[in-house]
């Protein structure tokens, strides 16, 4: 049975973006390289998805330096957390509907 995707957040239509958000909501913050290793993505690929999520204001970026190495950390915003919850709720509702 096919289900319409109307009630889903467009930003999470892409699987990788949903995965990034899953990591961010479970952690206070996460750095670029750890995220890259965990999700097994290339620099460019990860960066483009992060940019998209940042544009939605679902997460924020903190840039700092550890010694001389740049360290970029990402953390979820309240808006992003709410959107992620809503998206999960929509997924769960679909399962419930189908069981009726």
């Amino acid at each position, binding site marked *: 049975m096919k*289900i319409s995707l109307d009630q889903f957040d467009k930003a999470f239509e892409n699987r990788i973006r*949903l995965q990034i958000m899953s990591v961010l909501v*479970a952690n206070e913050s996460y750095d670029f390289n750890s995220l890259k290793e*965990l999700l097994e993505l290339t620099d460019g690929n990860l960066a483009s998805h992060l940019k998209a999520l940042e544009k939605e204001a679902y997460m924020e970026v903190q840039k700092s330096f550890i010694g001389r190495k740049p360290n970029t950390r990402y953390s979820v915003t309240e808006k992003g957390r709410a959107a992620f919850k809503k998206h*999960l709720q929509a*997924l769960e509702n*679909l*399962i419930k509907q189908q069981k009726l």
Partner: protein
Amino acid sequence: MEEKDIHAELSSIRDLMERSAKFISLSGLSGVMAGIYALIGAGIGYNLLKTGNYEGDNIVFITELFLVAFAVLIFSIGTGFWLSYKKARKIGRPFWSTGSKRLLINMAIPLVSGGLFTFILIYHGHYGIVAPATLIFYGLALVAGSHYTYSGVKSLGIIEILLGLLAALIPGYGLLLWTIGFGVLHIIYGAVMHFKYDS
């Protein structure tokens, strides 16, 4: 999107949330090995206690006992790192990850405080509460670290704390309760973890 896709999506989200925050390469076998080292150490300690003639020379005995305990600690930590590193390689996860760093830092705070406190106890000659203190602080370290690895570690920590309190309550059973806490419990928990997660 079909129902099984949604289930797959939800379980991949859950898996990522878990994996990103926790260190799950902790090797069960290293727990078993730590238990065995502790049993050997306790055996040596017991022999020192029985055969040694330490009248009026208590400091030699304490030093020997301390060296044995220190060797047990070093071997246990070494084996833990080595086997967990191997497990991480095997399952293709980074060993030095956000999860492992948090686990180390959160365990190190109670462990280092406990270690220093134990030194101070020995320095002041309060030998009787050394075994209870090491059990209690180790238990606290496990409880603190349990948020960043398998949740079963928390119940092990609570049992270690209870054993430590019991050892403090009834003097003279320090070595026995220490042997149970660091030896027997590690072997049981390590074996359970090994069969539950490693194989």
